[in-house]
């Protein structure tokens, strides 16, 4: 490809409108370099494909109504997946006998079929090619219409390119100034990236922050809260057990000890003779009891 336009590389002079005096410079200008392999090889592949790519679908207008190329023809290839409103089936009309039925009014973008029709797509969906064809009444004429439209569009583009970059390179700047707002919008890609960045990316990030806060504070907070509640109730139970239940046991024990200790202490004389006396009394009582039981 040849580029006829003004050299836009930053060589330090161009911007100031000086003559081309490259080579005499002391500092190194930005000399255009060949791109690395990783860039140009894919581009070459794409260029080759772009050159021959058109042959996958030669218009029937040029071949006298025949679809050349068989399976390689994109139309034949895609035919089974294209919804044909006139036959209410997938595929080209030639494969299914056309159904004679009056067309309904054109409705834009009727994606799903009417309820209950059982069809994936409606038969009322708008199809530009079919609309034109039904007006013109000829498939060849339809094809020509679209061929001519696309050639005109391409021609306009090429013409504008020649005007701006070959005929008079100042025109680009002049028109950029005249259509300043449009130029700026186009230059900034209509701020679509910025819009997405603000409306989608930033908001999703906010949502992510919110979700995590919710997760750690509310959801996990609930989990930790239930753990806290368990510990609290165990503390209460433990306290109750220690001071009330066990306290009662101890209190009774204390009471009993207080009550009984003088008596019991009195018995703890430490004299063997006393103990022996008690033993003998006990023995006598036991024998007496035994005798009473017998008689």
């Amino acid at each position, binding site marked *: 490809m040849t580029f006829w336009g003004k050299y836009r590389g930053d060589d330090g002079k161009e911007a100031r409108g000086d003559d081309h005096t490259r080579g005499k410079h002391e500092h190194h200008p930005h000399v255009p370099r060949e791109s690395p392999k990783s860039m140009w090889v894919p581009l070459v592949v794409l260029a080759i494909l772009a050159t021959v790519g058109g042959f996958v679908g030669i218009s029937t207008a040029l071949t006298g109504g025949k679809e050349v190329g068989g399976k390689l023809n994109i139309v034949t290839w895609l035919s089974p997946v294209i919804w044909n409103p006139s036959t209410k089936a997938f595929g080209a009309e030639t494969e299914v006998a056309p159904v004679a039925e009056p067309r309904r009014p054109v409705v834009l973008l009727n994606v799903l079929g009417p309820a209950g029709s059982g069809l994936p797509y409606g038969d009322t969906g708008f199809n530009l090619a079919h609309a034109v064809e039904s007006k013109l009444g000829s498939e060849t004429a339809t094809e020509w219409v679209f061929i001519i439209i696309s050639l005109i569009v391409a021609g306009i583009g090429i013409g504008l390119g020649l005007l701006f970059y070959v005929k008079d390179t100042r025109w680009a700047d002049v028109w950029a100034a005249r259509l300043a707002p449009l130029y700026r919008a186009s230059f900034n890609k209509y701020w679509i990236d910025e819009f997405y960045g603000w409306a989608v990316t930033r908001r*999703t*990030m906010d949502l*992510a922050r919110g979700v*995590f806060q919710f*997760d750690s504070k509310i959801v996990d907070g*609930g*989990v930790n809260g239930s*753990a806290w509640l368990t510990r609290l109730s165990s503390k209460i139970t433990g306290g109750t057990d220690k001071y009330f239940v066990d306290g009662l046991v101890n209190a009774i024990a204390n009471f009993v000890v207080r009550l009984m200790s003088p008596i019991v202490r009195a018995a703890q004389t430490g004299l063997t003779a006393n103990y022996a006396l008690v033993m003998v009394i006990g023995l006598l009582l036991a024998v007496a009891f035994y005798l009473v039981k017998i008689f």
Partner: protein
Amino acid sequence: MFTNNILSIVTWLPALGAILILGLFRKEQNDLIKKFATGWLVLDFVASLWLLGYDRGIGGMQFLEDHQWIPAIGARYQMGADGVSVLLLVLTTFLGVLAALSSWKYIAKREKEYYILLLLLQAFVLGVFSSMDLFLFYLFFEVSLVPMYFLIGIWGGENRLYAAIKFFLYTLVGSVVMLLGILKMYFLTQDTALAAKVTQATLNLLAGNAKASAMVATTLQQAAQNGTGNFSILYMQAIGSALPMGTLQVLLFLAFALGFAIKVPMFPFHTWLPDAHVEAPTAGSVVLAGVLLKLGTYGFYRFNLPMFPKASADESYFFSGTNHQFGVRSVMIFLAIVSIIYGALAAMYFVVKKDGDVKKLVAYSSVSSMGIVMLGLFALNPNGINGAVMQMVSHGVYSGALFLLVGIIYERRHTRKVSEFGGLSHVMPGYAAVFLAMAMTAIGLPMLAVFISEFLAMRGAFEANPVWAGWAGLGIILNAGYMLWLYQRMFFGEIENEKNKLLPDLSVREWAYMLPLVIMSLWIGIYPGPFLRYIEKPVNAVVRQLRPNYPIPGQPASAPAPTRAERK
């Protein structure tokens, strides 16, 4: 001998290895211990490959083993595996080897105990997947918590005790509720009125082949002789499906569902997971994400769906108005979808945040992935359930791999903060390549494992209700968002942190445990046919059990499929 007891061999081999380590080695023989443990797990993996001989043409439960165990309560030692179990068993032994291999350097204290616990964990998890007796299943299901508790509690990070106790208690709460359900099911097996409703056709469908049917018959006969109930999973599935739809069926469903939902984990029962993952050592995370989470989804597949088919398909139990209705399945689907999106957003927080933790990101992304599994399961059609099972396997591969990768960088830098990295692809190209492959797998790039499973699960969900698939799609976009951000922040750009300038690339040992995972991801992504053939028959049987009239391809349906309008 070998073929008749293959499931027992695969299950108990790691436990034997643990005992051998206990007896054969002294504490100081660290090098020998880790090599022995890894070699032993390789042996178990090789043994488990025998299971791939599962007869896919017959289907149903195979490799059956049946022995009397506790006659007083009718509990038996019954082992068996269907295609789904086979895949999960092999995944477990496969990840076990990699987990051991990844621990060689990472674990620097009490190595003997570490490898013993790792081997025991393997044994118990394998036991869960091969039990055909609910009592045995529950035993393995519960005891598998113990080694994991110690793995996190001893070799974990700073906050390890909190995480270990949370993990243990949280899962215990769920499984104790499940135990109540199990007890009720046990008493139902003694309900003669209910038993009269169980048809042989249902039993044959659930068992899948004549041998498994015969095993159920033996169990019933023995139980009748002893005058006990029984814990046969197949029989309980039949009993559960004979149970009329009503409060009891729903309560039983919920009792089992709570136990498994915590394990999966589903929103809002997931908060133990990020803590456990962040604190666990790398190998612990690998087994946790790769295998332990599947205990939950496997539970849904094995118990909730076939045992309570009416509750599983119910959409009007809780609320049934003229325009809206709400049932058990609606709850499950709702929680699954919330998990998918919520998990993805919570994961995203760790790239949005300045000093996010990579491991926590991967942990939350697991919540999202497991949500896809649940959505696929409750789509209640072959595509959905196939996708769910494949997602279990793919998630095991990619999340295991991501945790290993995080472990590799943690070993080198002792930090997991995203902000500490950047430009790593310059110094660690091999690491960057493997990480890319796994991040792309996680996103669900075509030709990689997750694509297949997510595609199938979403196709199933779409068939059930396009809106569900739409929500799942949103979650997948969010997944792609944070994974790409993460990759960009860690690997692209210039190296700004001095500490990263001299990082060594993957060592031979690291390649040895990363490469198999990359290969598995590619294999499943490019040619999932062999895997799907293992699960085809069992999954179709579950669908048949859930929806007797569903037109399964290649099988005659007794009635046409309900259309969208009819289902509403």
